[in-house]
């Protein structure tokens, strides 16, 4: 096996890890949060007070 083949296997492996990460995170989020909350975004809503902010910006944890 030459070093380019190792690179190719590494590319496959990283792709699989990233794909699985997104898939598992999506399932985790879907199970943790209420569907109504996840799909609560409305076009034109820009009032920041109504919006849940991420923890690092002082929002809910």
């Amino acid at each position, binding site marked *: 096996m030459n070093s380019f083949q190792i*690179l190719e296997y590494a590319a496959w492996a990283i792709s699989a890890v990233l794909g699985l990460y*997104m898939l598992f995170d999506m399932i985790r989020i879907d199970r943790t949060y209420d569907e109504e909350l996840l799909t609560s975004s409305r*076009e034109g809503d820009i009032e920041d007070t109504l919006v849940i902010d991420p923890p690092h910006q002082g929002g809910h944890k």
Partner: protein
Amino acid sequence: MSQTTAVHGEKISLLRVLGPAHVWALGVGIVLVGEYMGWNFAVGKGGMIAALIACWVAGLLYTCVAMIDSEVTSTVAAAGGQYAQAKHIVGPLMAFNVGLYLVFAYTMLEAANAITLGYLVQTVGTMAGFADVHDKPFIVLTIMFLAWLNYRGVYATLTVNLILTAIAFVAILILFAAVKPWSNELLNHQAMLNGLPYGWLGVIASLHFGLWYYLGIEGTCQAAEEVRSPARSLPLGTMTGIMTLLIAATMTWYVCSGLMPWEYLGQAVTPLFDAARLTNSMPLMVLLFVGTVFSTLASANGCINDASRAWFSMGRDRYLPTWFGAVHPKNRTPYRSIVFLVPVALVFAYFAPLDQVITFSILSGLLGYTYMSLNVILFRRKWPLGMIKRGYIHPFHPLPALVLLLLCSVTYFAVFLGYGTQLIAMLIFFVVASLWFHFHRYQYVRRGDQFTMQWPRPVGY
């Protein structure tokens, strides 16, 4: 608060964190790869001069697009960009079609970029002396990595795009300066320019690939719901974006047409990198190779951002299943739309030929531009100046809209000359999709909820 319960009044929305520089990076980032590769097929269609005419005619087309887009989107600050505009100004069926144009144009372009990146890595491997090298692992890695980046958050995604795009643009400026455009030391336009080998028909045919210089600048609108000040940032980012591209496109043509004969340039895969090789400067070769890779990555990255926003917006309005209208509570991204479009991009990148993928992207974009010219005429008629506040007012209306419509018509003919079957197949697809929407899907749409802009009643209603 329990994380499993939506408290009354609480909502999750996309995050407003972007500034004008991110908007510029989104628009130029999607497009700049067209300077590094693709535009030069216009040379093959009609010669050097035809490619220059195509560069400037397409530049005029896209200046109209940028001006029209800047005005309309400064009033419709919503993800989905032209889709949201069409919904408010024309109607649901037009909006559904525009949404599909956007998703197709960006997903196909993403696939084309991934194919190109895979090819570049494969070429490096072959040049390094490795046998039996494959492009597929790197095609898949490009799509998965950029999808993951988009999944994690829009600020990081478009900051990465800003860095990649700025480096790729500066590389073109450095190459232009390095070939000493004020002298004939390296450039030899007198010997290279060959008039119009296929006459004016060649000029029209070259328009097909002339679009490649600017295709995607209208993608800035997709950031409308994530910029801090849409009325200011979107016109500023879009207009500086088209100016950047006009400069980059003209420089690219000037450098390449002075260094390479048209027979070679017309079918070169990486013309700017080839131009750097002809200067015999190793630092320039490295810089332009890096520029090629970065511009390709930036383009694919921006395309994932834009396609997912369009898909998300359609889901949110029930034009598609509402499942797609979800926002990630921590990353604040349309995560389901991002993940859903990954396999779509992978299928096209893995199985479809590059020229077909590019042509479908161009055709989808072209359909979108045609709609834009009609859209702005309706917009000005229904809501004249002074009736609603605009962040930007484009000059000489309706001239830009009419010029855009005329140039789109000519470009349809240009595409028909080379890819007539694909053009007809695509039109049939959109007719079938429209029938499905009208007779089946529209019953699920909450008709009052889809119009969200606080505009007065239009003139005549």
